[in-house]
């Protein structure tokens, strides 16, 4: 695979894209699990889904059973969802934990901070301790986690740089958006399932080259020349527009805007893929996050959540405008499904060599490929 990776690392004019195997081969997918998803900070879920202390939600993260819970300090914690006794799954569905996490098998109980609190009958009936048994060493296995822009990021390997460093460049770029944002519930949440490797969803998201063809509706107000590439060698890439115009309701009112934004954001909006699997968009009045969940090599679930700048825009009086905004984004993302799935099918063409890039338009995709290749070569 070394030579394949070398072709990816060439300057864009000479480069080829990632070879087919990266999209179709189970072995590569398995390797990618460790090198790309476990070794870095990957998106797992959304903090809004566990809003209250004791709220817990299970996840299957590339086959790894995990759950997230909000602890007594109000912090999100992520644990392996496996009991330290016989390995039973602890949390099977979204649940509110009132006191302790009780394993459904032999009822060992864990506190929200992971401590093993009680082990009923472990020393025989009615005897809850045993001299040869040390509870204190049997807490839940915790996975490193960090919440940013409501996304719960995890680093399974435990040895990635601190999140603040990992995300330093993208945070720097979007510093002005480091402020509260508000989710309005079900009308601001939807998901799509695509028969494609997750990387094709990233690649399609971060380029604007396809806009005039795949999203002709956007053409009327957002022309190709109004878009710019964002490539900074900072674990992200994407595109921006110079002509964002907010959605208006019947009386010509728009959503409220984030405070203190510089003039640039009057008209600009940006869309960044934050590697590996989270796609973000920011506008002066709302933002969104898309989590890409790989379910095998050739299937991906996209979870889309929209957030508003002003808390009062999450109320019922704005429900109609929010519905229209969600609908607009759903249409755009649905328009992308056939190309993402089509590229997946195309990658079963044995003669495809990863493809040639437009030296001008494909920078963000090339950057992503370089990053992926780097994860496999330790670069």
């Amino acid at each position, binding site marked *: 695979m070394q030579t394949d990776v070398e072709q990816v690392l060439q300057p864009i004019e000479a480069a080829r894209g990632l070879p087919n195997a990266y999209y179709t081969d189970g072995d590569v997918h398995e390797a990618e699990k460790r090198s790309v998803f476990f070794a870095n900070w990957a998106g797992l879920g959304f903090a809004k889904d566990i809003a209250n202390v*004791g709220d817990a939600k299970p996840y299957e993260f590339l086959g790894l059973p995990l759950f997230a819970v909000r602890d007594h300090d109000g912090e999100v914690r992520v644990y392996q969802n496996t009991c330290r006794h016989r390995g039973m799954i602890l949390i099977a569905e979204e649940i509110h*934990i*009132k*006191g*302790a996490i*009780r394993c459904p098998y032999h*009822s060992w*109980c864990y506190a929200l901070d992971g401590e093993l*609190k*009680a082990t*009923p*009958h472990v020393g025989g*009936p*009615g*005897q*809850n*301790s045993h001299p040869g048994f040390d509870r204190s060493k049997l807490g839940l296995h915790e996975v490193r986690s960090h919440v940013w822009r409501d996304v719960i990021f995890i680093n399974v390997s435990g040895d990635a740089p601190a999140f603040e460093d990992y995300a330093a460049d993208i945070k720097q770029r979007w510093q002005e958006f480091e402020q509260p944002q508000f989710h309005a519930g079900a009308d601001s949440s939807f998901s799509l399932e695509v028969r494609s490797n997750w990387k094709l969803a990233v690649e399609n998201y971060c380029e604007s080259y396809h806009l005039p063809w795949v999203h002709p509706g956007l053409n009327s107000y957002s022309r190709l020349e109004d878009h710019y590439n964002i490539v900074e060698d900072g674990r992200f890439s994407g595109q921006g527009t110079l002509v964002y115009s907010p959605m208006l309701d019947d009386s010509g009112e728009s959503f409220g805007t984030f405070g203190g934004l510089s003039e640039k954001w009057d008209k600009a909006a940006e869309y960044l893929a934050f590697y590996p699997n989270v796609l973000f968009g920011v506008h002066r009045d709302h933002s969104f996050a898309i989590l890409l969940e790989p379910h095998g090599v050739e299937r991906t679930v996209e979870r889309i959540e929209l957030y508003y700048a002003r808390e009062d825009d999450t109320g019922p009086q704005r429900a109609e405008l929010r519905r229209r905004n969600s609908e607009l984004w759903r249409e755009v993302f649905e328009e992308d499904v056939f190309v993402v799935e089509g590229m997946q099918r195309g990658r079963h063409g044995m003669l495809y060599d990863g493809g040639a890039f437009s030296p001008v338009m494909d920078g963000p995709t090339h950057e992503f490929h370089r990053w992926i290749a780097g994860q496999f070569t330790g670069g």
Partner: protein
Amino acid sequence: MLAAHAVDDGAVLSVLYERAADLSELSDDTERACFYLTQAYILALEMGLPYADSLEKRLRRQGRI
């Protein structure tokens, strides 16, 4: 007690187990009492009921934790 298991109400169940423990203590059956106390304690812990503490203390007094 089986009925309470069936309705899946941990708080009710916990109280019933504690009652059973009391009765076993009255008939000097410490083993049985500690079994029931354990059941009551675990359920109270799960439900976050404050009286889990007093159940824990009872078990500790018996050297069962």
